């Protein structure tokens, strides 16, 4: 399977099964279009357009790639070598929040339940479980999440200390991250985070108007003025350590590239702005009718990005335009999907385990708890046979090894079926892959 596309005066060809990406000229693009290079009738038109010598030369280059398994490569079925082992955890430190963002899947922090904070005891049991269930895996990922995790800061500190104490005896490496709305960030917390968290995710949606429309304080005021200066303080002190200013775009800001540019102007250099995960009936959900505009928006952003990357005063990283063509994950990893429920769980303050943070509060998805471990095998099994090649749409999709099958929560929200991906998500994913390749090729020149 191949996919060819044109963007910003560049022709790209992706060979799905080998993962190779070729930048080609117009004649190759024409020859690959509907496999014209194979058809005498179609070749005639190409001879007319480019002349026989050049056409023959181009066809021989195509044949060379095919012979060397670089184009139209057959699928190598690799099987599931990575044995499922839970090694990543989202700790919902607080089912409470000091903002009430309209699109919050946590229903303004309480996940449709009582407001509550995670106790050290619950967190500790969760870590013990993580150490055990991860078996031989060394790297463990723990994200302090919420609601708003800083509402439970003291317990976070205790848990980090506890996690560190487990590293040597069990040969583990904890990578702590935190996702915060910024309201409670003061110097003390900032210094702690900068010292202890390998990544910090700062929730900000971009322009003041965009941010304040969705991210409101409990008194219905916008949050922008408070959080931006706190975030700026944090990144100023953070040095080279990883962070992401992380926004969400919805049907209300289809021109989200403006939000990204604004975040760059505010000084943020690592930016991740993503489509909202929402049920289709929500007013802000992204639907089929938005796709064309959103794709255009990505393309404009990608062109802007190429120029920005050439100038050290303007450059920034956009999370979804980073594609690692050489050092990326292996084909096993690319096949298995996001890991929800099999490698990754979310833990509530009460100690329930869910397959991922997006399912928290939907009680039929509880898979276990800190006292008994994973008990609901049937629920977990739903998350097992959903690798890219298990899903008919993904199996045929050229982007499958860049995407790995999309978000299960989205598939479930829109189609009530883990095997049918959320189409809007797919369209945007594919566009982002094309954009990333265009960017790579332009920056290599």
């Amino acid at each position, binding site marked *: 399977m191949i996919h060819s596309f044109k963007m910003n005066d560049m022709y790209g060809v992706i060979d799905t*099964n*080998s*993962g*190779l990406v*070729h*930048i*080609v*000229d117009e004649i190759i693009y024409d020859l690959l279009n509907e496999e014209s290079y194979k058809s005498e009738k179609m070749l005639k038109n190409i001879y007319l357009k480019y002349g026989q010598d050049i056409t023959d*030369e*181009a066809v021989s*280059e195509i044949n*060379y790639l095919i012979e060397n398994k*670089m184009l139209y*490569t057959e699928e*190598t079925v690799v099987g599931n070598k*990575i*044995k499922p082992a839970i*090694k*990543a955890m989202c700790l919902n430190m607080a089912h409470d929040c000091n903002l009430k963002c309209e699109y919050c899947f946590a229903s303004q922090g309480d996940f449709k339940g009582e407001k509550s904070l995670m106790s050290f005891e619950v967190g500790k049991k969760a870590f013990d479980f993580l150490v055990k269930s991860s078996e031989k*895996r060394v*790297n463990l*990922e723990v*994200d302090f999440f919420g609601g708003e995790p800083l509402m439970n800061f003291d317990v976070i500190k205790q848990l980090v200390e506890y996690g560190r104490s487990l590293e040597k005896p069990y040969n583990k490496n904890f990578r702590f*991250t935190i996702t915060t709305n910024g309201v409670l960030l003061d110097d003390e917390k900032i210094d702690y985070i900068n010292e202890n968290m390998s*990544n910090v995710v700062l929730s900000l949606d971009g322009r003041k108007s965009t941010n304040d429309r969705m991210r409101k304080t409990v008194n219905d005021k916008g949050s922008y003025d408070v959080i931006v200066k706190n975030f700026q303080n944090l990144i100023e002190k953070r040095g080279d350590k990883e962070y992401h200013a*992380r926004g*969400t775009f919805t049907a209300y800001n289809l021109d989200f590239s403006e939000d990204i540019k604004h975040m760059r102007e505010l000084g943020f250099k*690592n930016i*991740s702005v993503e*489509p*909202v*995960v929402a049920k289709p009936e929500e007013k802000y959900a992204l639907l089929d009718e938005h796709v064309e505009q959103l794709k255009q928006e990505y393309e404009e952003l990608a062109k802007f990005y190429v120029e920005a990357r050439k100038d050290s005063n303007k450059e920034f990283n956009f*999370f979804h335009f*980073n*594609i*690692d*063509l050489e050092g*990326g*994950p*292996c*084909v*096993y990893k*690319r096949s298995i999907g996001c*890991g929800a429920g099999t490698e*990754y769980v979310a833990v509530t303050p009460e100690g329930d385990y869910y397959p991922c*943070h*997006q399912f928290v509060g939907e009680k039929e998805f509880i898979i276990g708890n800190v006292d008994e471990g994973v008990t609901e095998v049937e629920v977990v099994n739903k998350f097992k046979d959903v690798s890219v090649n298990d899903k008919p749409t993904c199996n045929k999709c050229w982007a499958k*090894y*860049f*995407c*790995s*099958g*999309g*978000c299960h929560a989205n598939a479930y929200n829109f189609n009530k079926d883990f095997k049918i991906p959320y189409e809007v998500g797919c369209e945007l*994913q594919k566009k*982002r892959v094309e954009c*990333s390749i265009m960017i*790579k*090729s332009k920056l*290599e020149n």
Partner: protein
Amino acid sequence: MIHIKTLNKTKLTDNVNVKGCGECQTSCQSACKTSCTVGNQKCENK
């Protein structure tokens, strides 16, 4: 090659025997938390 420039050298099918350790980041954690992209992640096993 005059008409084709290949951006990457390694194929997905290279070294499949030594790959698959499962040490790399779980897709959705950390930077994004709403979508699962693997193409932009790092392999921990090199």
